[in-house]
């Protein structure tokens, strides 16, 4: 086995996450799919760090984790705020600007 196999897993996870963002309607599930995409990117960063023999990839993956944590905090707060005003967590229902 060579370390590039991890990259295939990473690519598949990223694609699955992207499909989830498009297909699912529950805002929380959409958010979890975004997290999946971030994690897939982290996996390829760690793999490239190993292949190149330097730790810079791991440092960038660490920063990605911090940014993802920030994103989860703010995003979930937005979802809760929308839920409070519109009583729904569906992304289809937040269409006030359309009408």
């Amino acid at each position, binding site marked *: 086995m060579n370390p590039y196999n991890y990259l295939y897993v990473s690519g598949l996870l990223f694609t699955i996450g992207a499909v989830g963002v498009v297909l699912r309607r529950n805002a929380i599930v959409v958010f979890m799919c975004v997290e999946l995409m971030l994690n897939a990117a982290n996996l390829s960063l760690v793999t490239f760090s*190993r292949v190149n023999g330097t*730790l810079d990839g791991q440092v960038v993956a660490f920063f990605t984790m911090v940014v993802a944590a920030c994103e989860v*905090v*703010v995003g979930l707060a937005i979802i809760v705020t929308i839920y409070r005003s519109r009583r729904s967590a569906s992304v289809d229902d937040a269409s006030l600007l359309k009408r």
Partner: protein
Amino acid sequence: MLTIQTPETVMFWILAPLCVLAALGMLLVKKAVHSALLLAWVMITLAIFYIAQDALFLGIVQIVVYTGAVMMLFLFILMLVGVDASDSLTETIPGLRAIAITAALGFGGLLVSLIGRATLGHDAYGLTAANAEGNVQALAHLLFSTYVWPFEVVSALLITAALGAMVLAHHQRAVPRPTQREQAIARFRGESLGSAAGLPNPGVFARHNAVDVPALLPDGSAAPNSISATLKARGDMLDSSQFELSEVDNTVTEEK
């Protein structure tokens, strides 16, 4: 030069399919809670991948931050929001599913074929030299020398995110909270006196003392307003007729 031992190969070929299957399941299951549990599993396998790839610190952080903090936050918000119609998998935009799956197949195929054809120009090095004094120590050296400026920026981002979440979660009442006296007056001055004495409790008249069984009214029908609206919307309501008495005991006569 990097050599990969047999245990890692075995681990990879067991965990990688499970990981991808769980991610696919995340898309296909109906309930958001099941998606969250599958995502937690994907994150645990990723943590194992990190540890196997000499990224011990990141593996531990992955478990602590993602499966610990982030997934708990997701489950907490899921409990707060509850279950509603947004869980349904029907497509609202016609043709969206076909387009999305075609695009995903194209994108995934492109990624896989690119990774398959690309070469790095050198052999994989491995992290034995970089991790010579320990993974955490080496990471700390990098973090506090080369990457000290991004590190500070990221800390500012964390503080901003915490402040933003507090501002968003802060809830100011538009109208003052009604007092108990005002609520009582509203009940009696309302359209009907039906709920003046409070709504019926669930279960107690149906021989089954549980919150998911509606109370039986004197005429034998179920009292719908004895059940919480959340349980009703979720479909977690039992039929109270199964707890009815088959024959009513009339032998006890009322004492005059």
